């Protein structure tokens, strides 16, 4: 009975070898990801800093280095003010378009029928 147990239960050396093999698998998985997955190192670094997202550009925005490349080397407040004014105008134009859309939606269906190109009302 004792002999059977000794045969089935791995020795300490076996366990140690097995554990080393498992560590090799873990290390291989990490190296594999480092080579094949561009984001892995970034994700690993961010995880160490408590975030999976830091350092990644926000969807729809330019990466920081790209954004920096297009920025004027000497920021000019006047340009910022002009851009901001343009954004405000953009909003006002959107207001006008929405008002027109609202008015158009209130018109009876007949009033929105396109007028024939020759200007005749037809049906006369």
């Amino acid at each position, binding site marked *: 009975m004792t002999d059977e147990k000794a045969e089935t239960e791995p020795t300490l050396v076996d366990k140690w070898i097995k554990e080393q093999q498992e560590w090799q698998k873990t290390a291989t998985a990490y190296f594999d990801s480092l080579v094949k*997955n561009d984001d892995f190192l970034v994700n690993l670094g961010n995880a160490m800093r408590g975030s999976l997202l830091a350092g990644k550009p926000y969807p729809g925005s330019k990466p920081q280095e790209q954004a920096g490349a297009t920025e004027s080397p000497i920021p000019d407040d006047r340009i910022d003010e002009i851009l901001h004014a343009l954004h405000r105008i953009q909003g006002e134009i959107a207001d006008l378009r929405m008002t027109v859309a609202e008015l158009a939606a209130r018109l009876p269906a007949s009033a929105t029928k396109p007028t024939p190109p020759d200007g005749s009302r037809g049906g006369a």
Partner: protein
Amino acid sequence: MIEEPPEKTVEALLALSGKNRARLDRLHEVLTSPGHFGKGATAAEVVYRENKLRLLRLLDTEGRPGTGAPVLFVPAPVSRYFIIDLMPGRSFAGHVLAAGFDVYVADFGEPAREDRFCDLPYYVDGLLRRSVHTIRLRRDGLPVAIVGYCLGGTLSLLYSALYPESVSRLALLTTMVDGDYEGGISWIAHRMGLAGESYDDPRLVPAVEVKSWFEMLSPGSNSVLGRVNDLWNRLDESPERLRDVRTMASWVDDVVPAPGRLLAELYRQFGPGRNELMTGRTRVGLKPVTLADISMPVLSVSAEKDTIAPADAVDAISLVVPQAEVLRLPGGHVGIVAGRAASTLWRRTVEFLGASVGSPHAE
């Protein structure tokens, strides 16, 4: 001293080795499995754009919007919108969509240098008003239910007072009303120098500075050593739980810069010592705002352990909007919206929104 037999010592070392290896395996699984990296979990179409704002209309798994009453989520413009649409199974907005509502989310995007001039009217009477207008045009003029989170709740509150006819219901989540309350983000920001923020010559307040105010509320939260230690200890948890924690931490970390003019205005009107919201009267630009004009049903939710918007400062809304139903939930500022116990808030919000139309799915 009794010495352990060498075999026992080796066994113990092997067990420790196995435990640490398992932690690294778990970390690898979390880092290589699909996670959330800064975009909403629910499919969406952009129905309106203005400057950095994107108004998203959420779509179900078949690519269709909800057919029920329209609901607009307004997150805080100083953080990423995706906290309300964090990840599959952890999306507040997705839950409301699944309940049958036609869900819209305002993504304010990331302000650039020129946006440092954006002020309260720009957000409330500009972006927010036009977002509601866009929705109403699509929905035959139906009033819109608004769910505002944190500072997004403040904007929603002001908007609802200015244009009550366009709002069917108003849900405010962790939205501070009492600016005199000692503690919380506005008090800390005041202490950290927000009082000196210039309205006339505003700057784009760097994200790292905005973040420092939040970190002051939980000192040590940004320590690299502390975070690595925390991560290492957490690696005994399941990969799913780890993914949740990391995703939440990602959102907390990912604060955006803030328009200085907006912050200066918020401080001047609602900050400590000013506290205009508690008087019931304030203004958005030149437009006077009277909170008594808020005629629609209001739900205000606070979180017991909220250090950013302390519950007492949130619940104070009942003093200025008497019909407001005040609900205090266990949890923190982020946890009640997207944490593991967030389903309580989601369920309660759907009940509240549903009550506006007689049935949760009807218009």
